[in-house]
């Protein structure tokens, strides 16, 4: 067995994984292929060759709808056999997180989910992920014959290569139909868009007393042309902001130029989402709050006093 297969239900993520996969494939001296499942799998195949796939395994089956982890795991296991692959890279979306460990168990293989870095050392694939609730990053090597790695979905940008050609290989799958019924799909309320791409990110935490006080925060956000995010309680318990605005281990990760924490104590589950910010500024009334330990600049004070003053100062500097 010697080959890397890439799979994600999101095309952009699959192309990003192929982009990174090109580098890994060349360092590990393995062929790189892609698995495409479902309707129009064939139509999507040609495009993947421009991102580094040299084989596209395409398959469709009525059993693939609706999604059931066991069925998708069975499909990918069969494709890995066809591809003679020992490594599979899967997008660590919610679907991917349900799928990857199930596939790994089918293969009696080791698995790493939510990978934040992939590299090759001594001909081994080194996978990094966060551990201990975000306190640490652990580097791991999977030593089973086959390896399942679920990679954070937006970790690698899709970059086309020059040239690139491949072969489309239809695979007929032996699958049992799903027993799960999907009754309904309700789109989620969308907040203000891609926090992952914010240049300036302002987040609020439990220090804010009331939803109405968001009117105090918004002018500050506007004065720096930022985006507004929050800690888990604000979105998931109080519902003051939408759930897609939650930053942290189980939410969004962002690498802004400036991250401004307002009324946030600094629990690791949140701060892990902004560790890569260039500059961190914190406002908190508790001078012992952990947020100040990871801040470049901090102001100890009541946010209800500090925020209007800071907003005014920024507005005067930026003329807004």
């Amino acid at each position, binding site marked *: 067995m010697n080959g890397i297969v890439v799979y994600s239900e999101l095309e952009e993520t699959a192309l990003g994984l192929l982009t990174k996969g090109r580098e890994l494939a060349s360092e590990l001296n393995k062929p790189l292929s892609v698995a495409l499942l479902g309707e129009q799998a064939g139509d999507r195949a040609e495009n993947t060759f421009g991102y580094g796939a040299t084989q596209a395994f395409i398959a469709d089956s009525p059993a693939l709808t609706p999604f059931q982890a066991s069925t998708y795991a069975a499909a990918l296991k069969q494709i890995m056999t066809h591809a003679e692959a020992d490594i599979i890279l899967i997008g660590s979306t919610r679907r991917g997180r349900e799928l990857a*460990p199930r596939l790994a168990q089918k293969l009696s293989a080791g698995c790493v989910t939510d990978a934040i870095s992939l590299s090759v050392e001594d001909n081994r694939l080194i996978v990094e992920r966060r551990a201990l609730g975000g306190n640490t990053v652990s580097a791991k090597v999977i030593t089973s014959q086959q390896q399942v790695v679920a990679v954070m979905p937006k970790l690698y940008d899709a970059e086309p290569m020059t040239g690139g050609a491949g072969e489309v290989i239809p695979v007929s799958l032996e699958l049992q139909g799903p027993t799960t019924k999907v009754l309904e799909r309700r789109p989620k309320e969308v907040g203000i868009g891609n926090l992952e791409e914010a240049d300036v990110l302002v987040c609020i935490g439990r220090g804010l007393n009331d939803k109405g006080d968001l009117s105090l925060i918004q002018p500050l956000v506007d004065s720096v042309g930022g985006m507004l995010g929050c800690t888990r309680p604000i979105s998931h318990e109080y519902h003051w902001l939408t759930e897609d605005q939650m930053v942290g281990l189980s939410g969004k990760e962002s690498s802004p130029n400036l991250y401004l924490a307002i009324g946030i104590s600094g629990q690791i589950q949140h701060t892990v989402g902004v560790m890569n910010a260039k500059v961190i500024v914190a406002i908190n009334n508790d001078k012992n709050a952990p947020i100040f330990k990871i801040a*470049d*600049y901090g102001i100890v004070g009541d946010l209800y006093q500090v925020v209007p003053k800071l907003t005014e100062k920024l507005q005067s500097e930026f003329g807004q």
Partner: protein
Amino acid sequence: MNIIVCMKQVIDLEQIRIKPNTREPVTKGLPLLFGDFEKCALEEAVRIQEKHGGKVTALAVGSPKLKDTIKEALAIGADEAIILTDPMFNDSDAMGSARVIAKAIHKIGEYDLILLGDSSADEYSGEIPPRIAELLDLPQVGFARELEILEGNDQGTNTKTIRAVRDLEDALEVVELDLPAVVGVTSELNTPRLAPLSAILKAGRKPLNEWGPEDIGITADEVGANASVVEVLSNLAPVQDRKEIIYEDVEEGVAEVVKALLQEGVLTQ
């Protein structure tokens, strides 16, 4: 409805200290507790039992300290607990732990539903629910934030199904599947109750069983450090080189911070 709730004790993550020189985490001696997701799984099991009857069994693999930790589960409402603390299970990877849990569930035998936290608070890998579902050949639902049990009758046979709302990135997906099934839950599911003192006192009298490798029929080549197929090369806190310039005077702080941000070039005029 017989429900098995799988629980994992984790160290109190907020008390972890990082050695400044080596960036290693100091985890020794920290208190062990159950994560929020697990508590929600247990709470939901107790609520389902209150409505539909049956039995709730808490199941956990971990260090001998589980004898204490598991009492919280019994106080909250589990009828019985099974703990697996044999040293053979130490340093298992996710596959090893999943094998122990699946074998213990198999030994329990009668169950309609397996509930657990979608991911543990410490590793957040989410590997255990899909792995035990695969080992037991059951369907799974992850990221469940609402659950409803539907009991019916199909030509004289009692049927049990579960309706779950699965929390995806951009949508909520309402799914229905026949029991038994493995369901991983998130903390939106409910607000776990605090055990009243009387329940804490009574918890000591509820059955607490300890099972070893022979009880569940597992051998050292399936579990523990030797069976692990994931090698940890390092586990260190990322380098954080922050300035930590903190102002305790608000007026000064506002002026200096704005000046600094302009100098840093992170805001442009």
